[in-house]
């Protein structure tokens, strides 16, 4: 941008000599570069005079110039002032660059900032209005579809449920989420932050960018910079308010009462005497409400005066759930200050305080899915009726009272000291304090023998998690002729202490919420329980980075971090994470033609190693299991028991990812078109994952132990394209991001005790539906390949089959072609990892109106419909069962009805396509005319309508194809989720 202005300036100044000095009128329109919107109220003054005008509501201006007036200065709050030489022009349209956008040239990197042109790493940014488009409490939602290689899934639509973020595919098993660095404080989540308080979010993707975060960089790093005091003098006040309504966007199609009754009569003849008169209850209608509100209000003050600048923000977010008795609200207070003690010393603080409240509904979605449509919710006298299947979902919710409160305070205090000309010392003391409280009350009730509670119960818990992080860095900057050096060295310490205290009692003296305290419970020993535990973990790190550039053409970055963590035993205490990267700005080369076609040509390449240590601090210890009591004696007394707990792995090592990235950045026609292409390859070794231990090990059924299990490759290409231009008065911007992922297991760690394959993806019913094996994507679905239905006895007799199969059952492929079907014929039946993730965004503006559309989607991944496969009891069936096989030739897809047995063996009968395209957001905005806003004392007023998750094109039969799963050995399995909603919003932004 700076360059562009320079070129314009030089070009125009050559014309100055030619210009004849005479009186004339100049006019034009002022727009914002960011989104092409017109800017009303821009101050325009003639340089060296007091003569000036402002733009009108449409951003237009006209000014009379005398013969000596040659330069106009355009200034507007929040935007960089711009000087323009008039020359002979009479129409002078000016594009202003917002201060925020100007940051685009300066990119926030780990422990510092860099000019974008000096970057050797792969970094994507989101800033400005893109941060607040999605009505959500969680700022991460803004990243979806905006940055190549970043996937944000919302596996649950429950109010206050955090999204799952994956950067460049799935590397690790245990916890694939990136870390967040908020104003220098390293955190695991940012759900306490209000999107409106954020200035920018940078996603660091390659090792050159993330290696400085060492053992925590493996899954990517998201740097969040919150807003600081506005640049100009005075105080800027802004207020915004948004109101939204949400509704379920899609129901799962199930059998009707009559259809279900007929199927049950096939299973157990005579169960329903007359299938045409059975009730028909749609349980999804029963549990979900339509048009449930979300509110989001915020106000901020920011300003600066001389040495002091501040930003103060306050916000309130409230979301009700589409299931009753679920909701979330949060207040977030933000206060950032900085004060320059002298020219060389600056002190400051960043602080966020966010109390929130959450109410959790009972887990009724699976219950409603399973409930028989032939049951009704209420008896004739208005009581909850017994509902076959999994109980009465309305009763389950009615008798569940679960709340959680949390107070989170995150921030830091820092001092920056410049000394000896080229040195900058920074010390920051950061903290993350989190205090939580939960309460859960269940009254006595009876609905049915399997849905009853004889003793009222209350559980209360409190927890506190305290982290402090002390970071010290010294930065050295030196330019000698054409050589630029920058070196950084640092030392950091971090300690996290957690503790919880919990208690529960039975038989409370009453049911009123005023009695939901432990003191109101029965005091008999044996029915009271207390719990108290904690953990401490520490990290100490040394970090180092140097950047060197020659003539702004050749760039070199070398960085390293050494981390020590208490999570690993003595022999594996420290891990070292180096990276090397080079960049080449070809445009600065003399051999490049000086055409105006290219505005940027840059090549960069990086290599480095980063790590992951997101496991529990005590994973390496074999702990003692207490409370393993037994009952003895004629009087039946409890006697205490204790023994060794689950087996552990004392040899846990750091997980490490070796990452290579080659990038090409192109800009054409003054960056009218920009393109960024990256090839990446990540190899993650010693992946940390909880592996299910076999039964004979004696840990109990399906207990998992953290292990360094495997090496995995993620490889792909990322492309980011943006085009911005104008046709007449319509300005538009079109952008797209796409990334491919090739995921492949390279080897299985022998230290895990598994060297040929790892079974995982437990459905909870004894079935494992994924297998991880060398050469396959991690956690691939594994089961029988269905090749039809046995149509008649002759086909059955002539075919290889499982011993319990009969006519009308699914016919499985004889994969091994040995004439028999057994477990060895199971095969790979799909991967949960999408091969392509994409998003495309368009923005249009015309006069005071603007419109934006964001699409996003993925393809190539499969979903295991686990909710359909898990059937310990007889549940309602999905609508596809309607077309079941009922005789030769009737179906070659849907088997005869059954409620368990051979047709429920893991197979691709349960596999569905998870590809989708979603209209993530559509927004129409209107900027009020200046004449009106001025009267109201406003500098800017804007109103908008928006829709989020408006539609999703997908073949998947469930609520949403975005199925998460924090464990990559078990992802993409839909076991029943709280669905996401379509949200329609109206909002107003005012700036004073």
């Amino acid at each position, binding site marked *: 941008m700076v360059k562009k202005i320079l070129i314009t300036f030089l070009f125009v100044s050559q014309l100055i000599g030619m210009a004849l000095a005479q009186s004339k009128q100049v006019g034009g329109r002022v727009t914002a570069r960011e989104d092409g919107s017109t800017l009303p109220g821009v101050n325009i003054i003639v340089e060296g005079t007091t003569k000036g005008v402002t733009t009108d509501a449409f951003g237009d201006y006209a000014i009379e110039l005398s013969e000596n007036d040659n330069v106009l200065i355009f200034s507007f709050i929040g935007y960089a002032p711009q000087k323009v030489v008039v020359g002979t022009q009479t129409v002078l349209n000016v594009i202003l660059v917002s201060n925020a956008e100007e940051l685009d040239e300066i990119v926030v990197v780990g422990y510092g900032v860099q000019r974008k042109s000096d970057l050797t790493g792969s970094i994507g940014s989101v800033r400005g209005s893109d941060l607040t488009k999605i009505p959500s409490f969680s700022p991460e939602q803004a990243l979806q579809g905006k940055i190549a290689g970043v996937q944000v899934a919302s596996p649950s639509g429950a109010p206050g449920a955090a999204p799952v973020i994956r950067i460049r595919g799935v590397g690790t098993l245990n916890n694939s989420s990136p870390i967040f660095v908020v104003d220098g404080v390293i955190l695991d989540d940012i759900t306490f932050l209000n999107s409106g308080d954020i200035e920018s979010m940078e996603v660091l993707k390659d090792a050159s960018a993330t290696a400085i975060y060492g053992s925590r960089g493996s899954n990517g790093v998201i740097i969040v910079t919150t807003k600081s005091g506005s640049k100009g003098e005075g105080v800027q006040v802004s207020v915004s308010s948004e109101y939204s309504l949400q509704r379920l966007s899609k129901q799962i199609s199930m059998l009707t009462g009559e259809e279900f009754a007929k199927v049950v009569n096939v299973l157990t003849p005579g169960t329903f005497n007359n299938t045409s008169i059975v009730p028909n209850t749609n349980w999804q209608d029963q549990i979900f409400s339509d048009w449930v509100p979300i509110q989001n209000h915020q106000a901020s003050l920011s300003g600066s005066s001389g040495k002091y600048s501040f930003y103060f923000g306050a916000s309130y977010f409230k979301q009700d759930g589409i299931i009753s008795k679920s909701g979330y609200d949060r207040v977030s207070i933000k206060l950032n200050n900085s004060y320059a003690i002298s020219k060389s010393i600056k002190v400051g603080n960043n602080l966020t305080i966010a109390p929130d409240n959450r109410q959790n509904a009972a887990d009724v979605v699976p219950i409603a899915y399973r409930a028989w449509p032939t049951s009704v919710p209420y008896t004739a006298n208005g009581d909850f009726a017994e509902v076959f299947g999994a109980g009465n979902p309305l009763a389950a919710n009615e008798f569940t009272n679960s709340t959680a409160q949390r107070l989170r305070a995150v921030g830091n205090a820092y001092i920056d000291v410049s000394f000896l000309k080229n040195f900058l010392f920074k010390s920051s003391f950061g903290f993350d304090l989190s205090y939580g409280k939960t309460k859960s009350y269940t009254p006595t009730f009876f609905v049915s023998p399997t849905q009853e509670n004889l003793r009222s119960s209350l559980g209360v818990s409190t927890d506190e998690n305290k982290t402090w992080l002390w970071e010290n860095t010294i930065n050295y900057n030196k330019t000698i002729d054409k050589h630029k050096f920058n070196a950084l060295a640092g030392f950091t310490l971090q300690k996290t202490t957690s503790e919880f205290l919990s208690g529960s009692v039975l038989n409370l003296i009453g049911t009123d919420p005023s009695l939901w305290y432990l003191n109101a419970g029965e005091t008999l020993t044996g029915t009271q329980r207390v719990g108290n535990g904690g953990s*401490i973990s520490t990290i100490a790190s040394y970090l180092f980075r140097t950047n060197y550039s020659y003539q702004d053409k050749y760039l070199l970055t070398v960085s390293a971090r050494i981390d020590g963590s208490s999570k690993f035993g003595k022999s594996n205490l420290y891990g070292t994470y180096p990276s090397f990267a080079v960049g080449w700005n070809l445009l600065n080369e003399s051999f490049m033609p000086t055409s105006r076609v290219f505005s940027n040509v840059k090549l960069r390449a990086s290599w480095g190693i980063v790590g992951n240590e997101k496991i529990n601090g005590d994973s390496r210890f074999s702990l003692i299991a207490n409370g393993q009591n037994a009952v003895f004696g004629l009087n039946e007394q409890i006697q205490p028991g204790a023994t060794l707990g689950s087996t552990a792995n004392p040899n846990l090592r750091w997980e490490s990812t070796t990452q290579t990235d080659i990038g090409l950045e192109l800009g054409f026609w003054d960056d009218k078109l920009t393109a960024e292409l990256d090839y990446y390859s990540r190899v993650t070794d010693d992946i940390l994952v909880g592996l299910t231990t076999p039964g*004979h090990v004696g840990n109990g059924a399906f207990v998992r132990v953290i292990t360094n299990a495997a090496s995995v490759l993620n490889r792909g290409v990322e492309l980011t394209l943006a085009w911005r231009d104008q046709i007449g008065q319509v300005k538009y911007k079109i952008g797209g991001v796409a990334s491919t992922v090739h995921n492949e297991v390279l080897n299985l760690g022998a230290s895990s005790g598994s060297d040929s394959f790892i079974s995982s993806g437990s459905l909870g019913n004894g079935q494992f539906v994924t297998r991880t094996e060398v050469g396959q994507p991690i956690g691939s679905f594994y089961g029988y390949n269905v090749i039809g239905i046995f149509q008649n006895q002759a086909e059955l007799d002539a075919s290889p089959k499982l011993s319990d199969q009969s006519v009308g059952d699914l016919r499985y492929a004889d994969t091994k072609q040995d004439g028999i079907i057994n477990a060895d014929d199971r095969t790979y039946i799909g991967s949960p990892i999408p091969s392509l993730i994409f998003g495309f965004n368009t923005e249009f503006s015309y006069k005071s109106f603007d419109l934006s559309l964001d699409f996003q989607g993925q393809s190539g991944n499969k979903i295991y419909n686990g909710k359909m496969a898990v059937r310990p009891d007889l549940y309602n069936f999905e609508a596809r069962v309607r077309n079941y096989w009922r005789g030769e030739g009737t179906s070659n897809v849907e088997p005869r009805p059954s409620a368990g047995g051979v047709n429920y063996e893991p197979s691709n009968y349960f596999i569905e396509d998870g590809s989708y395209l979603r209209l993530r957001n559509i927004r129409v905005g209107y900027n009020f005319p200046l004449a009106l806003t001025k009267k109201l004392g406003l500098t800017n007023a804007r109103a908008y309508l928006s829709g989020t998750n408006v539609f999703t094109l997908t073949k998947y039969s469930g609520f949403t194809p975005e199925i998460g799963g924090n464990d990559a050995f078990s992802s993409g399995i839909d076991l029943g989720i709280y669905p996401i909603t379509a949200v329609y919003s109206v909002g107003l932004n005012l700036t004073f």
Partner: protein
Amino acid sequence: MNRWIKTNRVISALLLTSTLSVVACMDDFLDQKPQGQQTEEVFLKTSQDAQLATTAIYNIFLDWNYHSGGFPILDIISDDAYKGSNPGDASALELFNKFQFTASAGDISRWYSALYKGIRRANIVIEKVPLVPMDETLKKRLLGEAHFLRAHFYFDLVRAFGDLPKVTVPTAPRKLARSPKSEIYSEIIIPDLLAASENLLEKSQYATTDAGRATKGAAKSLLAKVYIFQNDFINTEKYALEVITTGQYDLEPEYKNAFSLPGQFGKESVFELGAEANSGGSQFANTQGVRGVPNRGWGFNRPSVELINFFEPNDIRKDETVVFLGETIDGVFIGGDSGTQDTVYANPPTNTIIKEIETYNQKVWVPGIATLEAFGYNKRIIRYADVLLLAAEALNENNKTAAALLHLNKVRQRAGLLPVADTDKVIVRQKIADERRAELAMEGNRFWDLIRTGKAASVLGPLGFKVGKHELFPIPQSEIDLSEKTLQQNPNWD
């Protein structure tokens, strides 16, 4: 300006110094222990630890999964019972009734894992307690208990699955092939029970507060049972008679007290699982309790029409074994589940052949009208009547038919039946088998007895039993997969 530079230097020096001093004690900073929890290194060093670890083995009996994966599968799979409850509830259990279950049935893997969890706890005691400095008498007893319990868990496993991964240490490798069934018997079960019968006290020697712990009599009774499963009638006779001659046990005069709440830890109880409703409960009886009116549980394990008709006329055990609708037990009227049909016919809509009638397992009945009390039900694993019948069977097979009748008739007499006077070995063999069915009905013995005596094919064949396949349960498919196929499947399971 100079002043600022000086200040800068002072601040920098201070920070640098403090930084360096922190670096010096880095090792301590990075050495953090688990909080509020002990680690393996410090445990099982004292007499108290040894007692805690031994008690923890018994804790497995309170685990719902210990009871054949939660549900009374061993009765359901036999000809004595149907799945019960309402048709939709745990409908997958119906597959056991029809012999259509597969290797991926979760009940089987939960059961398998629970038994091995018990084995690991026993192995911990067997490996670590010998090294603990403590009272030698107590040490001997605790080790005896651990050996008894390990044998008990392995006996369940070996009958259900045949060849097994042989684990005798606390930490087993992930991949472990199956050892032959004979080796499990000869190297673990029998030596363990011999050690237990050597080291344990007789029932009467225990303090009343320790009722429920394994005894010498329990070890010998289990030995008798283990030998009969190997058709070693000589040893069965030996150990069963040793138990009988100690005089530690006798039949309860009233049949129902052999398994009822009042008969807990009574004279007929040889090995019994202690449970206490409030905080040491077991869900065993709740799973099978009367469903509906009164609401005592889920109603699984419905006595079959076949079983009801099997009892001889005048056999008082029929009424004590089966809860019929409309009867009153301990003052409680049994109304049953109004949501299901009381009678299910095998041939709708003609409805002439009765398939099931709504009944419940009375052996788990606990007085009361709510579900809570059922959690205090003590399951009897071995009772004296079983020992008498084992003795009778062994004596008969050892051609001591007259002596056999003595024990058989003791059991019959309590049931209100006339003594058997036959002298033909083959006839008496059948009488004893019938007596086992009647006496021990709904207690999880029938299926094993049919397999053991080779009658499963004829009796269970019509229900779906396939010879060469269903004599054993399948190794859970999940275990085969987790072991990376080191474990091989049982014959004819795909």
